């Protein structure tokens, strides 16, 4: 044998999983919601998605270049951020506002904290909240969706969201297929659930966070006297529970940590919906729980195999 051999530490086999594949799966899972938004709100929705995705990728590339670091556009995470941000915006938002959101998400929240895996809150969510408090009227202006019930339409260009509308305006079917006002990606519940099922089947996310989140929300709705099913299907609940709260970087890695985190998300969402001035609580509650993740992880270190509690006699 003449040529040299490669020497390294074991294991010498690696699985086929990769960061890019995971991000691709998330993009695939978001496709039903994106397509639904185009059907419901028309071509403007497609343009909004294109603007957000393109600016996120471009900003990520430029930021890495300026910081003299490796380009990470190839891992597709910027596309996911752009897509999620777009799905969280109203369809008639000024494109410049959308681009400003991308700057917040990619530059401020993601790259300034060290890039993928380092951000302490979900970039798309943080951007949405910055936009919400900076441009409240633009961010809360909802155009009527395709086939929305007449009661919900306020004037030719404005409709009420399910959370703001009078009870009985929207039926469950309206909420399921997206005949209601709201951000372009949050309206069609069926599309979001389909994406979530895909992610669980592909083992990209564990079902713990979405299931516990939704279950807690339903329970809390009963406690404060809201219709649980209506709460789950309306607003950003499904988009948040399936795609936002499950963001790897900003959710706990431990099993019990995930449970605590999701319970917290569900609790605060319904509390904010029921008792605050804001119509929507999903973004704020997930953001709050994001910040608590290090603390949650600290108290949920899993018990390692063979671990015995400190000195309790000579066991057995």
């Amino acid at each position, binding site marked *: *044998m003449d*040529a040299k*051999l*490669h*020497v*390294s*530490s*074991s*294991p*010498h*086999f*690696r*699985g086929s*999983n*990769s*960061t890019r*594949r*995971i991000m691709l799966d998330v993009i695939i899972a978001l496709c039903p919601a994106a397509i639904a938004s185009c059907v419901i709100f028309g071509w403007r929705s497609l343009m909004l998605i294109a603007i957000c995705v393109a600016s996120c990728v471009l900003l990520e590339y430029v930021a890495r270049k300026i910081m003299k670091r490796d380009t*990470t556009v190839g*891992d597709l*995470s910027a596309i996911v951020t752009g897509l999620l941000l777009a799905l969280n915006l109203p369809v008639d938002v000024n494109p410049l506002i959308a681009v400003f959101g991308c700057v917040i998400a990619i530059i401020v929240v993601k790259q300034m904290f*060290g*890039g*993928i*895996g*380092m951000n302490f809150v979900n970039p798309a969510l943080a951007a949405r909240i910055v936009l919400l408090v900076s441009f409240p009227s633009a961010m809360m202006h909802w155009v009527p969706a395709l086939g929305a019930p007449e009661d919900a339409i306020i004037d030719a260009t404005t409709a009420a969201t399910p959370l703001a509308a009078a009870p009985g305006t929207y039926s469950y079917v309206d909420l399921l297929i997206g005949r209601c006002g709201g951000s372009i990606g949050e309206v069609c519940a069926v599309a979001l659930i389909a994406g979530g099922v895909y992610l669980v089947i592909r083992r990209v996310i*564990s079902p713990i966070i979405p299931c516990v989140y939704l279950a807690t929300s339903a329970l809390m709705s009963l406690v404060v006297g809201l219709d649980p099913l209506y709460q789950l299907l309306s607003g950003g609940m499904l988009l948040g529970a399936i795609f936002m709260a499950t963001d*790897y*970087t900003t959710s*706990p*890695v*431990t*099993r019990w940590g995930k449970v605590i985190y999701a319970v917290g998300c569900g609790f605060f969402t319904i509390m904010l919906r029921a008792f605050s001035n804001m119509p929507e609580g999903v973004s704020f509650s997930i953001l709050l729980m994001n910040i608590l993740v290090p603390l949650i992880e600290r108290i949920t*270190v*899993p*018990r*390692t*195999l*063979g*671990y*015995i509690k400190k000195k309790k006699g000579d*066991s*057995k």
Partner: protein
Amino acid sequence: MSELSFPKRPYRTRGGVHAPHNKNTAHKESVIMPVPPIVALPMTQHIGAPCKPMVKVGDTVDVGQQIAGSEAFVSAPIHASVSGKVKKIDKITMPDGSRVDAIFIESDGEQRLSPDLKPPQVETLSELIKAVRDSGLVGLGGAGFPTAVKLNIPSDKTVDTLIINVAECEPYITSDHREILENSWDVISGIITVKEFLNIHRVIIGIENNKPDAIKALREIADSSIDPEDEIRVLPIKATYPQGAEKILIKACTGREVPMGGLPSDAGCLVMNVGSIAFISRYLKTGVPLVSRRLTVDGGCIADPVNVIVPIGTPIKDVIDFVGGYKEQPYKLIMGGPMMGISLPNDDLYVMKQNNAILALSAKEAMMTEPSACIRCGKCLDACPMRLQPLELSNAADRGDVDALKHFNAMNCMECGCCSFTCPAKRHLVQNIRIGKALLNKAKRDAIAASKGGKN
């Protein structure tokens, strides 16, 4: 631990990964390799104290003659695997990089057995332990722990269960599988010997369910009249890596957990590799010590993968030439399995006692990609059979944070490689944790040195 029942199905174990099995050699009869012109026997082929040579250059030795030994408790003597002349005693580089003395024997091709060899007289447990020690047996599954030490159970521990490890969870390797198919009676008679002498009434043969033919062969014997009290049972376990890791196998077979830092005997178990137990029965019959072993030669670069029975000390080069040489230039040469084996810098090394496989992997099989940033997906936690947090351990090792390493129980990591295997960012988690464990050991040594220094 009063009532002893046999589990109907394995107990639940967490984690593990579905590594490709690649058991290409499972259905091929083992072939016996002719005696190589020269063998080299390093003085460390086991965990424990190294042996000292007992022969001089120029001496004539016979097969089975003891040529090196040690007085230490944890050690195993070394026997000549070929007959011939001691050519030289020289240092060689071991796979782990250490330099160790090795006895080189030039074979005369006669393979005459040493006249001193005779079946040992074994009446009591201490005689059995002495016989096993004299045979030079070490755990043949890979770790190389001297079997005599294992059998010598401390008086304050009670062992009620003997577990025979046939999981063979590493990809490619089939040497234990072939051992069962070719020598199943040796396996059972070895089990009966050990169980009688140690007074154990529950023997569980833990075998992965991807070996139906071996399960059938063992069941036929275990259910026959040879085991009238029905104390030997075969337990098929799921075929995920690392079911064959000692602590995981104990959990799967008995539901017990070995306490952190403890030994299997702390959980009332004795775990033996199937090759070792079959060897004990052969040794008691013939008195021929451990001079040859079966090993799997496989991998994408091997022309004709097969199990071979070779004299210990055979150059790896000769073994590979015997099975048809390389099909293509290998990317990696591995001693052991692809998950925990050691990658070799060249093929200029020698088969050792605990060496169960030689794999020549192609670039396609073993290619490494550059690690990227951790995305905190938590897949390493799900994969860890010890329920550790590999990402935290790896980060702590990167920071050199000894307290965090302790907090996350770094020493409980068995380096099975599941976390690195499953990591989508291709991070070198196990490698980092190894560094972390070394840091912990260093901190411990420093603390001891400091406390001694303070007292003086």
